[in-house]
């Protein structure tokens, strides 16, 4: 499971960084989204991977910390997802405004060589 997660994070980050460095605004926003997915998975991984373990403690369970998964990274991931959504939406609006004002989807607002 660890290796799959690690490869997944790596591939997402790699593609994200590559897209982020591309000259078209749409590629940039997709790149940023991929990076934020990778980051979310990464935060999740930092809470250690464990299958079938609930994050909420119940009364009367002995040796609780061994049976339960750390809830903090899950809370962090939720927050990060929400903020990431909002920022992507905001960026999308600016991207459209830029496209409308400059007439091009180049990140510099003008085509190369112009």
């Amino acid at each position, binding site marked *: 499971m660890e290796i799959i997660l690690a490869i997944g994070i790596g591939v997402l980050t790699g593609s994200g960084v590559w897209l982020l460095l591309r000259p078209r*605004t749409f590629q940039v926003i997709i790149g940023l989204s991929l990076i934020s997915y990778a980051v979310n998975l990464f*935060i999740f991984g*930092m809470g250690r991977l464990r299958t079938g373990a609930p994050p909420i403690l119940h009364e009367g369970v002995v040796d609780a910390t061994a049976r339960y998964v750390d809830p903090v990274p899950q809370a*962090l991931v939720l927050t990060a997802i929400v903020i990431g959504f909002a920022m992507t939406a905001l*960026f999308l609006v600016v991207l459209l405004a830029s496209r409308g004002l400059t007439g091009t989807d180049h990140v510099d607002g003008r085509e190369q060589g112009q």
Partner: protein
Amino acid sequence: MTRALDHLVIAPILLPLVAAALMLLLDERRRTLRTALSLTSTFGLLAIAIVLMAMADASPPGAGVSRTYPLGNWPAPFGIVLVLDRLSALMVALTAVLGCAALTFSLARWDRAGPYFHALFQLLLMGLNGAFLTGDLFNLFVFFELLLAASYGLLLHGTGLARVRAGLQYIAVNLAASSLFLIGVSLIYGVTGTLNMADLAQRIATVPDDNRMLLEAGAAILGIAFLVKAGMWPLGFWLPTAYAAAAPPVASVFAIMTKVGVYVVLRLSLLLFGEEAGASAHFGGTWILFGGLMTMIYGLIGILAAQDMPRMTGYAVLVSSGTVLAAIGIGGVSVTGGMLYYLASSTLALAAFFLLIELVERGRAAGADMLAVTMEAFGNGTEEESEHEEEIGAATPATLAVLGLSFFACALLLAGLPPLSGFIGKFVLLTAMLNPAGLVQTATAAAPGATVPMPAAEVWAFLAVIIVSGLATIIAMTRAGIRTFWAPIERSVPRVLAVELAPVAVLLMLCVAMTIEAAPVMRYMQATAQSLHATTDADSGRSIPPPLEKATEARP
């Protein structure tokens, strides 16, 4: 009474939040009500900040924290705390001062250049205050995102091609930096199992060696996220463009945004990687020092090369944050004290200058035309214009004299020439560097780390760069001043309202006050520096309640 005072710690966050929420409910046309609300909130914030500063200053100089405020009354390592100490009180006060000045300035016309100016402005203040007050790493992330989201909106305020183009790049850079922030935070959490800064400081010394590399990698990645905000050299290319494109009152508040990055670097490097951090002590100090030096050099070249004044000021922001970063890299109690004085003085001066250049350039500006167009497009420009015609300031040479005088004061402040506070800040920095144990004989000086034998070469380099950057600033400012005031081809006196001139004057008078009252201000700064360094001394620091049974014990 004390309970009420305890709750005051959260007031700088709640007040702007409530104000912004109320404003969103109001109709866009109820301008007077919004303005009143906005003014009340911002000036209320100033009052609160002053009380907080007094509260923080009441604690003994060696003590780290004056007050912690556990949100929801959860005990510290589990819940989120707000922390008030001298440094956070100082930064909140600076934010409030800049907020008041910029808001007053914007009332003349800028707040009508687009929708939701006041609400975004309040949210920006909330994010800034939250970032300064929080004692929790992830909460810091949330407040960072809040202030960034508001700043995206404010940067685009007034629209126009230049702003959208600069805004696009600004947002992309900051979104990427936010991802780095998250990676850093989660790495640190993965290693130490805590996000509370005070708790973290205690656990870092005990991190096993094979995990230390992970921890330091996390801290470095986290640091990069803040240094992007602070505009450190290879990471700060977005800054001059974005600041030059922003509307003047917005740029003026942005003057403190670079200082947020600086603030967090200062706080975390002293708290987490202080003396007792074991093998990780002084982690990253050299990088910050050289990054700061390079930022200053880049900034001074930019100042000399800049073609217009907003851009030049953008580079001046870089010089200011570079100076502060380099001083953080050098470290030591008295250097930190001088650095804080310089930080306050230069932030005020930069904010005043951002406002001033709009007034100065107005005489010949093409920007005014663009604003008129956007106001027209927005549909509420016309009736305001006619209303303003009568009360608009008479175009007397006196206006020009006041503007010229303010420009002169800004030049002195930014270049750090006597007699104003810019000089005192730089002077204290230089003295402290040449004589690390000199100014304040602290109790901590007994500890071997407090007077680190500093490699002299770095200090001399810093000294030289500070002086050269002052020279470059004064050359560029003189050139711009002559071009603006002495050699205009068609002489048109800018029409300036009193409400626009007043904030500039107040900001500059604050700098003058900092000069005249240098002794008490400096005492506060030194006490701040002392308590910052004291927090790294074992137990006096940001006391958290004795750890209950650690929920994270099972963490491998």
